[in-house]
């Protein structure tokens, strides 16, 4: 078994985890105390960071410093209790409460479309532990909040090379599991299920594009898109589709869920862009979770140097 279940956790790991979070809590208490003073007595909750979340099995990984930010990472608690994952409900606290019904083992991913190697792959055959790396990425939600998250995963390009797309493959389409029993949020038609996302081939092959199976050095908690999810750090969070069961290579641009739900508001590209507002709110600033003052949103979420060339000559006002 490659991706370990929470039950595999050793006693020694649990102890380590506690000490680890005491350290974090201590650091947070310091930074948040300063913050709370600024906020006055209205936000005293910030001074009580509380216990950390899920006790997941540890994963081996190499740190990838080249692609990682050195900004302060958000707490495991914040990352695992503030999620947009409508398959488990539309409140951001719903996924942490209800995602336990998702069964992530065994997990198959169907690869189809314009590829030489279409097949049903078992997750453990796709992701080798020896390939795992940790990348600390900024995540910017289309709702104008952001986090810094230490993901564990492998570049999507590694997988794609193995699938051998044909010359006709211009786009990659990803599909989330559709099972209203495991994902009770799908009983309501808030979005058209299953959730579908897509990337242009060059975006999918970009070295920053990650398939994550873990965070904070542990197996991905269900509410964060277990057992495998996409992470595209220069795009709004909704592009980073969770709990993927299908990868299809296509000649035409895939119809993506949020684009179908609100074509004027959510484009196919969804690149983080402070100068293109969401029709209903500004995208020029964002609130980093854990901070009081808003910060300015950076073009391509700060990954301009790496990805701007993908869009040279494109009108980003129109291709939002």
């Amino acid at each position: 078994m490659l991706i370990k279940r929470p039950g595999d956790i050793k006693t020694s790991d649990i102890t380590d985890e506690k000490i680890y979070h005491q350290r974090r809590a201590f650091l947070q208490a310091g930074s948040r105390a300063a913050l709370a003073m600024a906020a006055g007595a209205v936000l005293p909750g910030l001074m009580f960071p509380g216990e950390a979340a899920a006790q997941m099995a540890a994963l081996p990984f190499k740190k990838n410093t080249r692609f990682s930010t050195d900004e302060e990472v958000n707490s495991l608690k914040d990352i695992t209790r503030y999620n947009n994952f409508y398959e488990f409900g539309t409140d951001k606290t719903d996924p942490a409460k209800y995602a336990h019904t998702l069964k992530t083992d065994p997990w198959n991913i169907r690869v189809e479309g314009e590829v030489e190697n279409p097949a049903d792959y078992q997750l453990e055959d796709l992701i080798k532990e020896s390939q795992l790396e940790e990348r600390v990425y900024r995540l910017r939600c289309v709702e104008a909040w952001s986090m810094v998250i230490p993901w564990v995963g492998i570049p999507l390009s590694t997988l794609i090379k193995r699938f051998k797309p044909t010359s006709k493959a211009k786009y990659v389409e990803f599909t989330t599991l559709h099972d209203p029993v495991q994902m009770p949020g799908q009983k309501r038609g808030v979005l058209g299920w299953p959730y579908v996302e897509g990337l242009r081939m060059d975006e999918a092959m970009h070295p920053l594009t990650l398939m994550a199976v873990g965070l904070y050095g542990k197996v991905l908690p269900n509410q964060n898109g277990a057992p495998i999810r996409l992470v595209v750090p220069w795009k709004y969070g909704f592009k980073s589709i969770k709990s993927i069961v299908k990868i299809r290579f296509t000649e035409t641009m895939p119809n993506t869920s949020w684009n179908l739900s609100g074509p004027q508001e959510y484009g196919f590209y969804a690149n983080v862009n402070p100068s293109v507002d969401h029709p209903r709110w500004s995208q020029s600033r964002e609130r980093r979770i854990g901070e009081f003052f808003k910060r300015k949103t950076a073009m391509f979420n700060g990954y301009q140097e790496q990805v701007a060339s993908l869009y040279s000559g494109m009108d980003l006002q129109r291709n939002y």
Partner: protein
Amino acid sequence: MKAVLIKPLVFITCLLPLVFGIWAGFTDQLGANPIEEITHRTGDWALRLLLITLAVTPARRLFGWSWPLRVRRLLGLFTFFYACLHLLTYFVLDQFFDWDEIFKDIIKRPYITIGFSAFVLLVPLAITSTNAMMRRLGKRWGQLHQLVYVVAVFGILHYLWLVKADYLLPLIHAAILLALLLVRVWYQRQSLSTRRPAPQTS
């Protein structure tokens, strides 16, 4: 229940959301984004209390309850109180007095435009809620306070327009408002047909 107890009981009940909110803040239960949570809670309670205020008249018509009438002003003022907290949360915690951004939001973002309008329309209602003002304005007081219906519709639209995809809760609020208004229309028609040929005003 003793009539004298109604007001203090309703007063304390209306304060509970604030008390629970402060408690949640002190015990770190406002989640990862406390400012968003405070914004949502104060907005929710402003809208809920507005609907409860508007339920006073239907409650009398449908069930013959007259006691809610004694606390209608109190409920209305608590609506204004939570609306103030909601707006202050936005001005202070969310935008931190960035008047330039706030101004742009109010002009450019329809859900903020209409939400802010709802608040502005609530102000004269709160100011004229005293007995002295009621006496001074006479018949015009009633006309002025018809504005509460506009405020309610604006409040619901504010909620509807800010939601991303899940319209269930705003639509439930809208349905409640619609029901409360329909009761009024129904009784107004009834009284018009029974009182005829009494002269019609307005």
